């Protein structure tokens, strides 16, 4: 998808593959045949640049034909460079400018509570975007509300465009900061699908506040020349690099099955 588009963000998207697999194929109540189903859970994406993994998950789940993935970022495509509401069935919110996902998720969580609905709201965010003020406004606000229907999953991969997060503006100790804002905080290995699913289900036991799941991930996970490299944050692979990457990922999948 990214190599055909010759643009896009590789590292973060690849690092969140297991998180999206956990969400779309175990956690979320949703119906690809009826994307507007009133009983669905909501998945908000905040770090919109990682949408290749959202699109891949939606296509795999059956929201649209997989062959359309090849139109990513092309003129006239439904797979916009950053997703927006209405662009594609299954896309629940507009995102791209960082820090805008959580506030929207909070608003939807409040609306569901007002209407006495039991749908859950999940918001996937990056760590780098936690440098944005709007996120801390939203974290401060939501932490004081009984929004037990809201869960955020933070892709803690320690990279951002310029460098490693701790070299730019450090976020640690992140779990303590979120706890201090009155959030229920869990930390998991974001590449462990079972751990992510278990954490998402564990939030159901929390009755008075929202939950933050810090998902430790390796950007570019599964491709040796991409892993942990900030330079892979915002660039696509060449045709040859893409072939190599897919070969490595397929080999790893086979290993996992043996």
């Amino acid at each position, binding site marked *: 998808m990214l190599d055909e588009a010759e643009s896009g963000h590789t590292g973060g998207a690849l690092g969140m593959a297991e998180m999206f697999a956990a969400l779309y194929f175990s956690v979320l109540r949703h119906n690809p045949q009826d994307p507007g189903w009133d009983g669905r859970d909501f998945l908000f994406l905040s770090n919109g640049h990682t949408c290749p993994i959202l699109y891949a998950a939606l296509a795999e789940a059956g929201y649209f034909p997989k062959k359309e993935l090849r139109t990513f970022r092309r003129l006239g495509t439904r797979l916009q460079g950053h997703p927006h509401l209405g662009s594609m069935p299954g896309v629940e919110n507009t995102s791209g400018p960082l820090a805008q996902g959580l*506030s929207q998720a909070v608003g939807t969580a409040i*609306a569901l509570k007002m209407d006495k609905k039991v749908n859950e709201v999940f918001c996937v965010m990056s760590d780098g975007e936690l440098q944005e003020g709007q996120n801390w406004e939203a974290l401060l606000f939501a932490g004081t509300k009984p929004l037990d229907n809201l869960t955020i999953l933070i892709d803690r991969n320690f990279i951002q465009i310029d460098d490693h997060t701790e070299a730019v503006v450090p976020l640690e100790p992140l779990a303590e900061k979120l706890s201090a804002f009155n959030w229920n905080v869990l930390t998991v290995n974001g590449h462990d699908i079972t751990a992510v699913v278990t954490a998402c289900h564990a939030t159901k036991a929390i009755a008075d506040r929202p939950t933050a799941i810090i998902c430790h991930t390796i950007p570019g996970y599964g491709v040796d020349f991409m892993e942990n490299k900030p330079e892979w944050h915002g660039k696509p692979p060449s045709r040859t690099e893409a072939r190599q990457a897919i070969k490595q990922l397929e080999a790893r999948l086979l290993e996992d099955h043996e």
Partner: protein
Amino acid sequence: MNSKFLNDYLRQPTFGTTRDGFGRGLMEAAENPQVVVLSADLTDSMRLQAFKEKFPDRFIAMGVAEENMMGVAAGLALRGKIPVTGSFAVFSPGNSLGPLRASVCYSNLQVIIAGGHTGFSASQDGATHQALEDLAIMRTLPNMTVISPADEEESRKAILALIKNPGPGYIRVGKHQSLNLTNPRTPFKIGQALTFREGRDLTIVAIGSMVAQAIDAADVLGTRGIAARVINMHTIKPIDQAAIIKAAQETGGIVTAEEHQKYGGLGAAVAEVVTQNFPVPLEFVAAQDTFGESGTSRELMAKYEVDANAIVRKSLALLDRKVRE
């Protein structure tokens, strides 16, 4: 306009504020159970107190956090709520432009943004609080409807109209007392300008508190034998192109009047229509690319030449140009 649609403001002048009209209209709009109010710590100033007291379950205190307020409003609208956000315009859209643009406007969600203390109505608070740029900001956002009501009654009608209008909408309100020109019988339709005074020599197109100033100016011009048409252009976007083109054709020149910077606001909007359809001389009564300062609104409007006197001067200059050009 039929005189019964306007108050007898010469013999029995009464005064009000657009923020009070907004607050009253909101209470009527609250009949719709989907209406939710979000306040960024300016509940009384924005006239949201009555709503808060009567509908506590539909009132959300956002604290001093305009970006989050805008994003939460978007999230509420995603579930069919009709959120109305309240803050001073220098803070929202001033601080909230990012989420307003992407989360609200790009998604084309019905979020209503009430911007207060606009124009020189923040008076003694000084330039930091005087919103003179909000119309330009709002007008450039796709999907946005932009309304600047002329008086208290029109402000009441404007919020009621926005509650029924799909998509994002901005209502510009102020705290200074201005003449109550309109009454419950005065028509109000989004995008439909109102002609308050007929005239053939020139047209004054005004918004907000400047509509009353324009009528004053037209009276002064009348004593000199000049018949000025006065148009209340309460909706800046979508603008009433037909009314502007007709004014250009029939009166041959337009003066615009707004409590706003000369760039990007009403003057620019009128110029966009006139230059592309029926070019005639234009003059702009507006802040001249400058910040304000502390003072009463009346003092500030005089000093920054945004009042009836300024409209008269620009009208005379326009008539000179009409003769020469």
